[in-house]
């Protein structure tokens, strides 16, 4: 019996996976040819400069001062406001850049440093983390969540996640390292679904400590893990399961935060950097509830910030609740993904201070559900692509509009399989 073939009935499953993976790398490189956010746009440039500046800061200042206002680290200029794992990653990337092109990360003198070679190096660091974290995580997810599915659907699942257009654009065009926290969160989901709950808990903590936006998934992970613990036969087993998971979580946090745990002030300084409450309910244009309804009811004018923050909290919690309850009562593999999608989307739609790039977080579980809801997975990414196109129209963005649409097309092909 000949081996079954896919993709126009031409290639075996293994070849398809190889071709798909290599093509995904190729497309990332090609997207990377384009410009990045804030290119040649002084004085503050954009996210690219933020990442470069973090490398500069973490490389040249002592750890305790990373989140602190010092003469070498003025926080008004792209001060570090991501959790510790991001800082460590910046330090590592800084080392690499320092080896090949020290001027690119020289203290202070490198502000707004833009050369072709440093751009290529920066791009390749994103690509390296993509290959080290995101790709393996997606292969694991396909193996775990697609285990009982026909190979053809597994291939589509892989394509939907590896060629996720929004991620391609934001990480490899705009310039960020979302692939790390997304990959870690997806890895966590896969590990938990494969019954490695402790590994999953650690991975999720790492994800949360790379980008706190991963907290969008927190209710889902919390509910699913709690639900699993409650399924233990006896009361003492239940307690033991909860405690062991709790220890893993606390242990991971302590390890990552250890440099700043020496004093209460230092830890508080990091926290205040991570959670800036002073900003408004939404910025510019975000396709969430507050922004859209603002057309009818001017939230910012009619209500105070405190009231709005409370309103956000209540609506978000209300939106999350159904999935939360379902997972605590009856945790399941697919339910975990659904809960992740639901909680992250609730946060995106109703929470306070949402950035449009946060759409990447709901997109992850939705892509992983591509086999169950092909139509949703195909069309949902299209909406943020329109958003991105609109942003390109407001200027200061790198990739021409037409190109964003070009990238959006393959994803819509998935639904029409």
């Amino acid at each position: 019996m000949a081996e079954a073939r896919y993709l126009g009935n031409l290639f075996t499953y293994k070849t398809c996976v190889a071709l798909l993976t290599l093509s995904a790398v190729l497309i990332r490189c090609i997207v990377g040819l384009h410009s990045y956010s804030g290119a040649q746009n002084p004085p503050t440039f954009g996210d690219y400069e933020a990442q470069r500046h973090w490398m500069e800061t973490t490389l040249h200042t002592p750890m305790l001062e990373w989140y602190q206002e010092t003469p070498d680290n003025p926080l008004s200029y792209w001060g570090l406001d991501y959790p510790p794992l991001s800082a460590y990653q910046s330090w590592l990337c800084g080392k690499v850049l320092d080896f090949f092109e020290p001027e690119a990360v020289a203290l202070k003198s490198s502000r707004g440093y833009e050369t072709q070679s440093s751009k290529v190096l920066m791009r390749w660091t994103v690509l390296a983390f993509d290959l080290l974290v995101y790709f393996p995580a997606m292969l694991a997810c396909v193996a775990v969540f697609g285990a009982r599915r026909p190979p053809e659907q597994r291939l589509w699942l892989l394509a939907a996640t590896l060629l996720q257009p929004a991620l391609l654009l934001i990480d490899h065009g705009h310039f960020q390292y979302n692939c790390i926290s997304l990959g870690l969160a997806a890895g966590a989901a896969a590990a938990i679904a494969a019954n490695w709950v402790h590994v999953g808990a650690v991975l999720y903590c790492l994800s949360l400590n790379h980008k706190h936006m991963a907290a969008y998934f927190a209710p889902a992970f919390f509910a699913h893990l709690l639900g699993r613990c409650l399924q233990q036969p006896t009361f003492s087993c239940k307690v033991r399961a909860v405690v062991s998971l709790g220890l893993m979580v606390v242990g991971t946090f302590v390890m990552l935060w250890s440099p700043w745990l020496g004093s209460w002030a230092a830890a508080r300084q990091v926290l205040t950097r991570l959670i800036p409450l002073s900003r408004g309910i939404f910025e510019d244009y975000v396709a969430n509830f507050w922004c859209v309804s603002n057309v009818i009811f001017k939230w910012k004018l009619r209500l105070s910030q405190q009231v709005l923050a409370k309103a956000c909290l209540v609506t978000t919690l209300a939106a999350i609740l159904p999935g939360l309850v379902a997972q605590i009562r009856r945790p399941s593999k697919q339910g975990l993904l659904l809960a992740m999608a639901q909680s992250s989307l609730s946060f995106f739609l109703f929470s306070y201070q949402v950035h449009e790039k946060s759409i990447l977080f709901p997109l992850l579980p939705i892509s992983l559900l591509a086999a169950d809801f092909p139509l949703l997975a195909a069309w949902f990414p299209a909406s943020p692509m329109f958003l991105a196109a609109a942003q390109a129209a407001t200027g200061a963005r790198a990739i021409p509009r037409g190109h964003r649409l070009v990238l959006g097309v393959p994803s819509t092909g998935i639904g029409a399989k």
Partner: protein
Amino acid sequence: MAQLTLLGARCVAAVTGLKLLLAPAYRSTDFEVHRNWLAVASQTPIQRWYEEDTSEWTLDYPPTFAWFEWLLAQAARAVDPAMLKVEANHSPSPATVLFQRISVIASDAVLIFGLLFATRKCGVKHQLVALLLVLLNPGLLLVDHIHFQYNGMLLGLLVWSLALMAEGQDLAGAIVFTVLVTMKHLFACLGPLYAVYLLRHYCRGDRAVSKFMLLAASVSAVVAASFGPFIVHGQLKQVLWRLFPFGRGLLHAFWAPNFWALYAALDQFLRALLPRLGLVLPHAASSITGGLVGSSSFSVLPNITPAMTLISVFLGMTPCLIQTWRQPAPGAFPFAAVHACLTSFLLGFHVHEKAILMATVPLGWLAASSYMTFEDAYVPSENADRDLHTAAVGAGPVRRQLLRSASEMQDETSAGRGSGKDHESTTSASAGLSRKAEAWHQSATVDTGTSRGEASQLMEYCVLSTAGHYALLPLIFTLQEYPIKVLLLLVSTIGIGALTGDDDAQQQAGRRQASKTVAIAKLYLLGFAVVEGYCAVLHFLIFGEQLPFVPLMLRSVYSAMGVTAVWIRWTTRFFHQSSSKTKHV
């Protein structure tokens, strides 16, 4: 008749998207060459087109291409009039870059049309494979959409012409070919083959002379339309002077992976070896690796003159020409044409490595015929019998087997039909045929598993594509594009390699060991990873900036081995074919 399938259309759309995304990539001076031609064609009167030399990038393609540039300039004016300034140092605006990039992508429509035309009677899978092999040709993507040239359009004309010839539409094929040659004279290397074939296949029968006159008139009309205005203005000499600049060397700065690269490498080797043996070098100290175009000579082996290369090209083409003269078969013509292209690439004078596309692009279309189904092969026509016999020339074992059984079955049915003109009996015969087709399918799959004496057509294509296109990689030397060019080649090699379906057939037949040829081919392909690893990393770690020509030489010599091996296989096949035919007749 197979339409463009949904999958095929998606494939075309995806490749077009990929090309669009490549817009900001590195572009060579060829970008400015074509920009300048746009300006010259639109801003100066015709009599100045081939004299204008404000910029050093003067027009050196034949007139039809200049007309094409004139046409493009009409659209360019609407995009950015500054693009059309005749000046020496032009810095293109973003709109200009996008316009020129899109003009290449749009002109690729000719290639897509040519392919769809060539595969319109093929099965769905056959067409899809042809589209994939040609549109994702890594060399074409590198040269057209990064380096910047319009080869896709030109090769589209070539494929169209070859497909017309293969269908027996000789006059149309000849006209398209003439248009092609008046766009880029590189394709003139196919001239002898076309001439021989047309004389023997088209100009025969009762009306041979009038057919010949018709052919001559048509071809002359195309040439006149192209060159006419320049002849009227007394510019012909100037045009020809620009088209054929003499005084260049045998080898380009970077050696194209052909026979002369091996020759030069041998010379280098002897040059290092002889003094150690206490022998004196025959020629004065001179360097071919200096990197200067035009000033190269050998230190041990005899120097090669243009005349010598011309003779060797003719000698190399001879078996194929003789075979075409003896048996001018439409089905075999495209294979003969690819062989002729390969020959002039391998033995020609001052060949540029980009010229390999001339062979690999049409071969991509032909190699897809491994996916030919029985129904495709069975084309009932008056001279189907002869066509089927002769189409086997140059075809791989799968196809040859298929053609053989198809013609056998045709013999059987025509015997059964008696007079063979009765419609009813034809339908019953075709019903029998479809039953036989199923049986054939089964036997063919077994056959591919057991008779692995030769690698399939696709394996040859895999070697030629990888070897030929690998030598194109140094064209794009910027760091940013490095992973892109390597991945393009890697993806296509893995894809083509997987299409050969060797492992499958082997398993099916219960065989553990792949045949010798396939094993050698695979080993050779793996060798590219070693060569690239050395050239890209190891060499600089060991020697630093010293001996900069060694990686280039190594790349081109290793590629040349593969190209030469494929050429030898093809040439011997033509020899074999013609000798077996003489026995037959």
